[in-house]
């Protein structure tokens, strides 16, 4: 058993639940319009493919692999569905799967279904798929690059979904965000690795076994270098902003509690710190954190470009 993301009824306040129902309904409505706007033959066959692949995602969530005794890697499948069906159709499929899990298996509540679809469907699948596409095109748009992008996005999607779940629980007054957030993010940073590994392995298998299917369902995109760089910067900026929420150096939730409970001294500091407490020595306050964030962003973009070169040279050879 692992701390899961399917919130049951009773843990979110009605206000939070309803706001997220509205947000989910709007976004799913957009997804329905986007997927219905295809030619007639495709429009007739799409619900069938989506329905059967919904059952596939359901079944794929049964697959696990042992990590150590007692713990195992799982698949949620959001980014996988988004890669195979496109972001919008993939989101509808995940929303359907989450809805069926709630209605037929009592896995997640009914009043909070909007929140669960929001976290795993909208954030995890729609957001995850666009991040995957962005990373994929930034890396050059080759098949290995897009699969690598899906892997990174799969990890981010699980962690982000866990973060949103905790924030909603916090807004409802059911959990203490200062303690709950680091705990949930920490656990799901590990669970996300399983998600990323399975996603990459599954897509690699499909790409090798049936490349024609993959090119039919999601063609790699060719983007201009300028657009590619722009997407990269936007995504990296988004990640940096998200990260700076979690990495704020002043009274960090866990640290504050640890200080109070008196076990801060027991905590080990990292073996080396490039930017201690995410600040640049010599600068102070917010400016310093932002500069550290930007530097981090540049490093991330550099690593991505290097990985892209590597992926491209591997496809050429």
């Amino acid at each position, binding site marked *: 058993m692992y*701390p899961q993301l*399917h919130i*049951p*009824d*009773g*843990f979110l*306040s*009605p206000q939070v*639940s309803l706001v997220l129902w509205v947000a989910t309904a709007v976004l*799913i409505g957009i997804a*329905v319009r986007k*997927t219905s706007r295809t030619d007639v033959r495709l429009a*007739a*066959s799409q*619900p*069938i*493919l*989506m*329905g*059967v*692949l*919904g*059952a*596939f995602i*359901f*079944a*794929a969530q*049964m*697959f*696990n*692999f*042992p*990590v150590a*005794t007692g713990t195992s*890697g799982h*698949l949620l499948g959001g980014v996988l569905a988004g890669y195979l069906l496109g972001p919008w159709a993939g989101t*509808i*499929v995940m*929303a*359907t799967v989450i809805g*069926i899990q709630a*209605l037929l298996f*009592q896995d997640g*509540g*009914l*009043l909070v279904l909007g929140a669960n679809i929001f976290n795993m469907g909208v954030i995890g699948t729609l957001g995850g798929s666009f991040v995957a596409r962005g990373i994929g095109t930034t890396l050059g748009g080759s098949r290995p690059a897009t699969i690598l992008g899906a892997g990174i996005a799969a990890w981010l999607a699980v962690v982000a979904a866990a973060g949103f779940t905790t924030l909603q*629980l916090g807004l409802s*007054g*059911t*959990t203490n965000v200062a303690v709950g957030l680091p705990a949930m993010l920490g656990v799901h940073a590990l669970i996300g690795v399983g998600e990323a*590994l399975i996603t*990459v*392995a599954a*897509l690699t*298998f*499909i790409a090798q*076994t*049936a490349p024609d299917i993959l090119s039919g369902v999601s063609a790699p995109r060719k983007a201009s270098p300028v657009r590619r760089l722009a997407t990269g910067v936007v995504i990296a900026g988004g990640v940096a902003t998200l990260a700076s929420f979690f990495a704020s150096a002043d009274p960090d939730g866990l640290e504050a509690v640890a200080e109070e409970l*008196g*076990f801060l001294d027991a905590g080990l500091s990292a073996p080396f710190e490039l930017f201690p407490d995410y600040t640049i020595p010599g600068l102070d306050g917010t400016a310093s954190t932002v500069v550290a964030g930007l530097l981090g962003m540049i490093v991330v973009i550099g690593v991505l470009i290097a990985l892209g070169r590597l992926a491209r040279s591997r496809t050429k050879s």
Partner: protein
Amino acid sequence: MEPRGVGRDARAAVITTLAFVTAVALLPPGSYLALLLAWLLLAFAGALLGISPGHLARRGLIALPFVVAAVPIVFLRSDELLWAGTIGPISLQVSGAGLRIALTALLKAWISVQASVLLLALASPPSIVTALRRMRLPDVIATSAGLTIRYLELLRDEARRMLRARTARSASPVGVGRERIGGTIAWRARTTGSLVGSLFLRAYSRAQRIEEAAASRGATGSLSIGTMPAADSRLTLKVIGVLLLVLALTLAGALLPRL
């Protein structure tokens, strides 16, 4: 037990369940008496359908593990301290208000799960989808949900067989003398990913066959409207009854003493 009401308009059952769950969620923390009332209502409805309260109560336990999420609040709120002290090097406090919030959330989850168990006893999954379609669920979602439900067991069975085959062929990750066998984590993940990939290929080719079969019969991309059961003629009356019940439960939450 075979679900009742197959081929009947399930809208009243769906609306009742959603309204009941909403009413339960609206109860303020500590309203244990109102929660008891809500559970007695459920147990009564279950008894009418031939489900024993014990069975219902056990089915409700599925939501229990999530209470982990509410544990921090018991120890981190500093109001209405019930207990404070030290265990070894850690000083701890237990907040009465936090305990009340966690316990209420737990009971609400337990009761709400039982409500959706009753919904399934009242209406079959396809009739729930039909009811949702009548309640303006977009056609793409209703159709793909219907197909997902139809092929769910088939693909889950396929996945089960693949997992059994994997178990039969590969060793456990940790051997008797705790030596590592069965490859690295990355290797295990790749094996599992390949299984997921081949399950996708099977699902995809099945979808293609269904498409061809459907196209040859002149399918338009939507499950036939003709299979819809007759509309419930007393729906308005039932919905009014449900709303009164919900109102009564909410009032009970406001008026009954809280702990």
